[in-house]
């Protein structure tokens, strides 16, 4: 069953003084199955971030539609949108976006507090997640007291504590060193194994090679996609690498 369906998505930015129009997304169509782990790759300016923003309901498409679990994003009113986001989507950002005024625990609980959960319920959800992500010892600390890798795991915990239908990760390894990157990717893999659907936008071939499927975007279009099939991480890595080379050198032939 497809949890996310993206149909003929198009986005045109008009520069402020009128005149110049930039096509950020052009006729993008794909769907994501329940429990899938999808990486979206592309160069800077390829339209990845625009796509992610539209999926996150932070931006509106010019054309086409996004359907999350049977609901069209365009049909959600401005009033509901904040609640919709926090109940259905989980976010992981490149720069963590933790609040420095909250302890780690409170950062994780923030979305639950916003949706007015009971404290007992919050606590019940928090314990297994913090153990699984290896941050159980850090709960009383503050963001500035922990490392980048730990911060990102906290951000993941915050994203999954609401049991969202979909996790959107925007360059989650972008600010991490290689060891932290590995451990974060392990975390993603682990939560994906538990059935969590993940869409991750990334530059990193290594990060993408851990996903189940990789979409390539170039100049606002869906250019190619790779399925893992039976590949190992290393094999997938090579395939992605080849595709990227093709994208950079021979991509224009497709125009």
């Amino acid at each position, binding site marked *: 069953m497809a949890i996310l369906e993206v149909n003929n998505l198009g986005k045109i930015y008009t520069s402020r003084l009128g005149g110049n129009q930039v096509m950020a997304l052009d006729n993008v169509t794909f769907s994501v199955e329940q429990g899938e782990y999808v990486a979206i790759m592309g160069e800077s300016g390829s339209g990845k971030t625009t796509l992610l923003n539209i999926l996150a309901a932070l931006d509106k498409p010019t054309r086409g539609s996004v359907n999350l679990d049977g609901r069209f994003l365009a049909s959600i009113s401005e009033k509901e949108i*904040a609640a919709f986001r926090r109940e259905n989507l989980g976010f992981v950002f490149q720069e963590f*976006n933790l609040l420095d005024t909250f302890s780690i625990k409170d950062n994780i609980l*923030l979305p*639950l*507090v916003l949706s007015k*959960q009971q404290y007992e319920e919050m606590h019940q959800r928090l314990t297994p997640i913090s153990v699984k992500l290896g941050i159980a010892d850090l709960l009383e600390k503050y963001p*500035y007291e922990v490392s980048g890798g730990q911060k990102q795991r906290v951000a993941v915990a915050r994203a999954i504590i609401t049991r969202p239908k979909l996790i959107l990760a925007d360059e989650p390894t972008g600010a991490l060193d290689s060891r932290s990157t590995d451990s974060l990717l392990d975390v993603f893999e682990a939560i994906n194994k538990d059935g969590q659907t993940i869409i991750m936008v990334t530059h990193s071939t290594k990060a993408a090679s851990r996903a189940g499927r990789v979409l390539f975007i170039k100049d606002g279009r869906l250019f190619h996609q790779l399925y893992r099939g039976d590949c190992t991480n290393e094999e997938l890595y090579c395939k992605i690498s080849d595709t990227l080379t093709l994208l950079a050198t021979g991509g224009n032939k497709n125009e």
Partner: protein
Amino acid sequence: MNNGFYARLAFDNLKKNRKIYLPYILTCIITITMFYIIHSLYMNESILAMHGGAQIQYTLSLGAVIVAIFAIIFLFYTNSFIIKRRKKEFGLFNVLGMEKRHLGAVLIFETLYIGIISIVLGLVFGVLLDRLMYLIIARILRSDYGTGFYISWKSMLITFALFAVIFALIYLYSFIKVRISQPIELLKGENIGEKEPKTRRVMAIVGTVCLLAGYIMAICTKDVVMAIELFFVAVILVILGTYFLFTAGSIALLKWLKKRKKYYYKTNHFTSVSGMTYRMKQNSVGLASICILATMLLVTISTTSSFMIGRDDLIASRFPYDFSAQANATQDANDAMINDIHSLLDDNNLTIKQEVACRYLPIAATQNGNLISMQKDPVAMPFLLVVMTVDNYNNITGEKKTLADTQMILSENKMSYEYDVVKLFGKEYSVKEKVNAFVKDGFLANGTSRLVGGLYAIVADDTELNAIYEQYKLEYGENAGSIQLSYGLNLKGDEQKQVDFFKAFKDILQQKEYNAIIISRAAQADSYMSIYGGLFFLGVYLSVLFLMATILIIYYKQISEGYEDKKRFDIMQKVGMSYAEVKKSINSQILTIFFLPLVTAGIHVAFAFPMINKLLGMVALTNTALFALCSLCCFAIFSIIYVVVYLLTAKVYYRIVKNANKN
């Protein structure tokens, strides 16, 4: 790169940072204006020529010094704040290839622009408003206004010199700050993680105890002596309490709220409690200082304005008669003096409307049951017993009372005597009746009995008074005082004649060596008037300056927090908080920060009220209703200004936060 480039860059910088610089320049202008005005008033000779002008000018000279000191501290403070905010910008210039000395050149031009604009506009406004202030002072002194436009070149020069030096120092400070910092540091500037504050429970408890103790002292003070003794203790306790509670208490409270999970993990409380913890850590000392200063300001302004408005009453009670004398001499000498007064009055064409002469014996005594005796026991609270005759009493009050030899009439002043008989120096008197206070201010040792309690004992006649005096001399020996005379006159005739009479009699007093103190309403009321007026003027003047400072400090604090909040604001929205929710949460926090000092100051003033009211009673301002009204009005005006500034600040704040949201 030529000089024109730096000049232009400096100008652009100011324009770009106008959100920060406009209020700063405005403050500079107002400070300069206020300094010029107060200094030129101090130099103004037509004020010196007014009645009581000398006292006012003395007050003004003090005021000028205060304004100057204030200007230095305050402008430095705001500038250091601005430099902190602009660190990132300097860092960027630095990275882009400008050397520190180039930055120095830009800073010079910036300071120069600000300095020139502020000093020129400050002096222009100063000269324009100077006349207005002059008229206000003339009104306070009830003097002729005089004509003409007064410009004090000397004051201009001093103002220019003072502020040129201040701006030069500010420049040096900024340059050194920029110079000693590394480009990377400059770039990162303000983004250093804030630690979670520690709970200091002991400090919080001590603060609570201090504050409560101060309040209890203020409320429970019964009389003036106690008020004088306890006033400063109470003030210090309240100041300590305020600081402790703002710093430790607020955080202890917030952390306690955090521990109450059921309360804390609710949408509204969650963000406000942790937001406030963070804000209080940064701002508590500043807020406590603002609170204390606002309290002092309110107290000063409400007392000086009570003096100002109630000054006619004050003068009436300070000078109960047009002319009065306190003599401490033999009866013959006193009679001679009164004769001299009478003849001198005739010489000056003055006639008597009312004449009061009262002989009395003041005794420092203690009470033991119905026995009144001399003060031997050092622990027993002494009171002042004033013995006088019933004829004198009738003379003062216009009544027609009579007494037998063994009878007394009593009048209590701040003490109570419950017995029907009085045993005094071996003789027993029965109390015929008790009468209300009848003695006017400064009369019959009334000033002393305002401090300690007093009992007026009215006896049958001079024989009885003299008999008591003889017994008193026996018992007190060499410590004994003598029978004194209080003499008061109300006169017909204009004030100038009364002044002439007073001066002439002063000479006679010295010539003939009468042992007496004389007071004339016409000759001396002016100096009181100008002391009250001068204090009031200075109080208002400095309050305006201080108010501006408070406002600007809070404004800057809010702006800088706006820049920090914009990140948080963004994150919260990404995590799923709606714009309205974020706005609501932040709004309640700013409101709290803004009005916490004001509300606390109001509470302080309310608790201080009974105590200060008693102290004012000592200087004869007994009109409680007037004082209450003045306090309320001052607080109301203060609050209104505060609210207006809050609204303006909030507007700027939201603009900052909202812009961030769009990016």
